[in-house]
């Protein structure tokens, strides 16, 4: 089977999420990549070095500069004449483009796969991760999005892909990129962080969130996350949100501080290797999934913990 992987990048480097997708694709067959963007020579060169990669198709055109689905989808569809499957990371970028590709190919997409059981059978979470479905597709061409935390990342070195330019498909003319506001952070990116310290509504304010969570995260070299309640209350920005409707993470260690553990939140972090919970309510659902729990006042515990580490 020839599989195509859409490479997510920021114009300069390949995003980590792509590496897990390459691993999933390699379980299906020969792996080719598509790098679409503007001025993406460096990205293509980096992509060609990913272990296990064959051809790297490069589409360099202003129409792909901001990965607008209306422009990227026809490009991927064109390449599907020679491929049996296309895989995207289940990131906001991948989730935006993949279903459009599936519709244009008249196939049903398989979202957010956790494992490849065979060429046509996959597992995926439903109901906020409260059930795992095994699904088999009847479609000849497969369009799949991959949950990054469910697959090992492919090595970034050792590959020797051949770079090949592909015909561009132009601008659809129905959408225009206006601009973006990217939250800046010195800390590790959430979805790839080994350790995550996450805060909930119990922190009470944005000031307290930063005063308590940030120093602990810095001590541990951790990424900072938040529950939806903390984000909705304005204590932390949107892209900190861990959960069904935010980011899905699976770090080595997840420290949940002042988070009760609603099912929507658990859906985003319950595959973490070790979960540590600090909460004053000893009946909070978070303790049912936590490997280590400490019941008490976070305003006392967190500063003490930060100091003693």
């Amino acid at each position, binding site marked *: 089977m020839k599989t195509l992987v859409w490479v997510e990048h920021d114009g300069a480097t390949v995003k980590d999420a792509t590496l897990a997708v390459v691993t999933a694709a390699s379980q299906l067959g020969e792996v080719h990549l598509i790098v679409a963007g503007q001025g993406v020579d460096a990205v293509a060169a980096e992509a060609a070095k990913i272990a296990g990669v064959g051809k790297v198709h490069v589409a360099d055109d202003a129409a792909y500069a901001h990965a607008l689905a209306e422009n990227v989808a026809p490009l991927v569809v064109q390449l599907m004449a020679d491929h049996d499957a296309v895989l995207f990371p289940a990131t906001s970028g991948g989730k935006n483009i993949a279903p459009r590709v599936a519709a244009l190919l008249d196939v049903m997409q398989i979202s957010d796969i956790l494992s490849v059981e065979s060429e046509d059978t996959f597992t995926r979470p439903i109901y906020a*991760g409260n*059930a795992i479905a095994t699904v088999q597709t009847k479609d000849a061409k497969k369009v799949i999005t991959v949950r990054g935390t469910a697959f090992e990342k492919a090595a970034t070195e050792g590959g020797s892909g051949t770079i090949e330019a592909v015909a561009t498909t132009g601008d659809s003319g129905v959408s225009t990129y206006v601009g973006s506001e990217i939250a800046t952070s010195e800390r590790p990116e959430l979805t790839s962080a080994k350790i995550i310290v996450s805060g909930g509504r119990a922190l009470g304010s944005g000031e307290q969130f930063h005063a308590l969570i940030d120093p602990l995260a810095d001590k*541990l070299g951790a990424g900072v996350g938040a529950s939806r309640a903390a984000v909705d209350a304005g204590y932390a920005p949107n892209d900190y949100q861990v959960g069904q409707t935010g980011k899905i993470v699976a770090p080595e260690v997840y420290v949940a501080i002042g988070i009760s553990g609603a099912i929507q939140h658990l859906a985003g972090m319950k595959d973490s290797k070790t979960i540590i919970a600090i909460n004053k309510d000893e009946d909070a659902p978070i303790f049912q999934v936590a490997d280590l729990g400490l*019941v008490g006042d976070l305003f006392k515990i967190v500063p003490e913990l930060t100091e003693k580490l």
Partner: protein
Amino acid sequence: MKVIVPVKRVLDYNVKPRVKADGTGVDLANVKMSMNPFDEIAVEEAIRLKDKGVTEIVVVSIGEQKSQETLRTALAMGADRAILIVSEEKVEPLGVAKLLKAIVDEEKPDLVILGKQAIDDDNNQTGQMLAGLLGVGQATFASKVELTSDSVTVTREVDGGAETETLTLPAIITVDLRLNEPRYASLPNIMKAKSKPMAQKTAADYGVDIAPRLTTLKVVEPAKRSAGVKVADVDELVTKLKAMGVAK
């Protein structure tokens, strides 16, 4: 300006889903069902756009007869009329997108506003598929919508922050949680909604093939985590963290 809002009847988000013992799916007998939370946000946004040039809101649902309740809820919130496409079988996002395309071809709306995903199958596909089938612009995960007479500018929630795009109308928008706070339907409006028009159709009326492409072989509960331990104080937690190699 006409807006179509598709809504889905799903297991209420507060209910913990139970996987059936025979592995065929999640038990939906005698459990509370509600409008998909993202669809409530989509309905609310359409209503808020009424003072920006929107004159008619048509809500659409595809599913069993009981989906009428979901449509009545949307009508009580402020939608003008409803279309129910009855199917006792589950319809996949691709089938839903094809049915919605048929409705769009007939109704010719300027905007279709959908939820970004349904909380039962967690697919996050229908809006994008509809946009692809129609060949129109799509703005997914919307957190802000600004409508003019011939275009719509949407701020989208993306990994790492926000992104803004402008789409030519007609266009498809899928909404994210923070777009708005949906209103509750008042009792008088619930009463009024009972007399608003609701058309009943079937997939065959639109000549759309909704045969599923995916077969669910089994549904199981996720692996349970083994019970953890509670530590007495910060010192013990620090000792354990050091033993795990998390802290030096």
